[in-house]
């Protein structure tokens, strides 16, 4: 009897100290009224108001979407482009856990976190775009098993891949909470999650392209081909890596105190290595594009305005950054590599939008142009993602910690030791 009461009291104290820990962690670290916070906070506030209007009055109230253009910026940019940028996670986990390139280990966690948040927010933005968002569960609960539909595949893969990335990232969560045994169990699941995650990524990165296979007569012939799925898959490799390089250059400036000396010292080497892989995959991509170009006899379109736009994408934003990447790798020039990453990301945005928005129904008299409110909501989604990312990175062992391992975790275990 007495033992039970003691145990209950102990449990209560445990819960209380845990709640206190969470409350402590929830508080902002660092200055609140920074220019970035004010601007992004305003953007999110306006976005929230717009979303209330959208859900109260329907899609037509704030978007320029119509029966003729049901997929606009929220799909073309948030989902299709966002997922391509999240590709860094599967590429890096492949390199580290499958190929055993330990050199890249220090940035795996932050990349996986980035990928996970990208899926959570950008694929989550899908909900904003659905006329009846609650129906999103239908493909999952079997209300409509559309096994001959690519969208069905993509829906399942998004869900499963988010779970896989959560498992990949979960050791950091457990370390933050100071749950050593849970961490060990989750750590043992990493390889399984990685294998599963890479497989899923291969399929849904290409699956997003496969969605457009059905729009044969709607996508401009310079961007339509039977090989869209493969082109999307290959381009997601360097899209993801460019994002990793870009994100790294910002993270290392903003979170200097979290990076740790070792990672700070090895980071340039990591970036140079990534540049080589990105550059090589871009060469592969260009060869594929060239084959598709010849196969589709696309030269007849080159003289048109769309042709110039296509050349700008392929030469200016794929070939040029590929050369810059490889040159940056040769010279070990990190700044050149960062410039290449930026150009590459621009090229990816352009490519995805060309397929999904700009080149979509290119012949129509009345074209879709996103409303300012659609752009605002997109910016709000990005701002929200950055806030959550920052919150996690400044609390959990994401940067550096992963490979300066024996170090004990930030989570102060003292109160709970006292309670036990």
């Amino acid at each position, binding site marked *: 009897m007495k033992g039970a009461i003691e145990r209950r009291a102990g449990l209560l104290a445990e819960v209380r100290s845990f709640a206190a820990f969470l409350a402590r962690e929830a508080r902002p670290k660092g200055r609140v009224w920074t220019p970035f916070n004010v601007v992004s906070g305003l953007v999110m506030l306006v976005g929230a108001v717009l979303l209330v209007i959208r859900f109260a009055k329907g899609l037509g109230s704030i978007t320029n979407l119509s029966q003729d253009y049901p997929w606009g910026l929220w799909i073309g940019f948030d989902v299709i482009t966002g997922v391509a940028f999240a590709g860094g996670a599967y590429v890096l986990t*492949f390199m*580290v*856990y*499958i*190929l*055993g390139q*330990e050199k890249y*280990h220090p940035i*795996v966690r932050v990349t996986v976190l980035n990928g996970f948040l990208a899926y959570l927010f950008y694929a989550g933005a899908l909900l904003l775009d659905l006329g009846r968002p609650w129906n999103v569960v239908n493909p999952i609960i079997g209300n409509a098993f559309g*096994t*001959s*539909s*690519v969208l069905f*595949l993509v829906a399942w893969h998004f869900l499963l891949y988010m779970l896989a990335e959560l498992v990949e990232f979960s*050791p950091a969560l457990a370390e933050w909470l100071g749950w050593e045994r849970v961490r*060990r169990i989750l*750590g*043992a699941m*990493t*390889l*399984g999650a*990685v*294998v*599963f995650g*890479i*497989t899923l990524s*291969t*399929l849904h990165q*290409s*699956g997003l392209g*496969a969605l457009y*296979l*059905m729009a*044969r*007569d709607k996508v401009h012939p310079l961007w339509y081909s*039977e090989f869209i*799925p493969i082109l999307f898959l290959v381009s997601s490799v360097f899209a993801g890596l460019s994002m990793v390089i870009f994100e790294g250059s910002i993270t290392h400036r903003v979170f200097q105190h979290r990076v740790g000396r070792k990672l700070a010292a090895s980071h340039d080497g990591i970036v140079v290595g990534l540049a080589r892989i990105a550059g090589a995959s871009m060469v592969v991509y260009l060869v594929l594009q060239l084959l598709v170009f010849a196969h589709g006899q696309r030269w007849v379109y080159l003289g048109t305005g769309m042709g110039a736009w296509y050349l700008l994408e392929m030469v200016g934003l794929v070939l040029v950054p590929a050369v810059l990447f490889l040159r940056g790798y040769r010279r070990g020039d990190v700044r050149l590599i960062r410039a290449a990453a930026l150009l590459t990301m621009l090229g990816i945005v352009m490519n995805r939008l060309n397929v999904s928005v700009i080149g979509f129904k290119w012949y129509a008299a009345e074209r879709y142009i996103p409303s300012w409110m659609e752009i605002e909501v997109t910016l709000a989604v990005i701002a929200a993602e950055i806030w959550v990312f920052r919150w996690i990175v400044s609390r959990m062992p994401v940067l550096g910690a*992963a*490979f300066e*391992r024996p170090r004990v975790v930030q989570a102060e275990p003292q109160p709970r030791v006292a309670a036990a």
Partner: protein
Amino acid sequence: MYLASVPFEQIGLRTNVGTTAYPVYTKEFLYAVPVVLTLLPPLLVAMSRARRETEPADRDGEHDEKGEA
């Protein structure tokens, strides 16, 4: 169903809609899905194993070695 005594183009109906059923466009892609889903994971596991067996000593990695097989 539309019946007209004039060509469809003249009354603004699209005539390039084709005769292919929509599922046909993506059939090949969807056929590749189970193949990738079943063949890629064992390939990845095999690669990771082969790598680890050729490496002399296992470095202290993020993952625990136990229970990975």
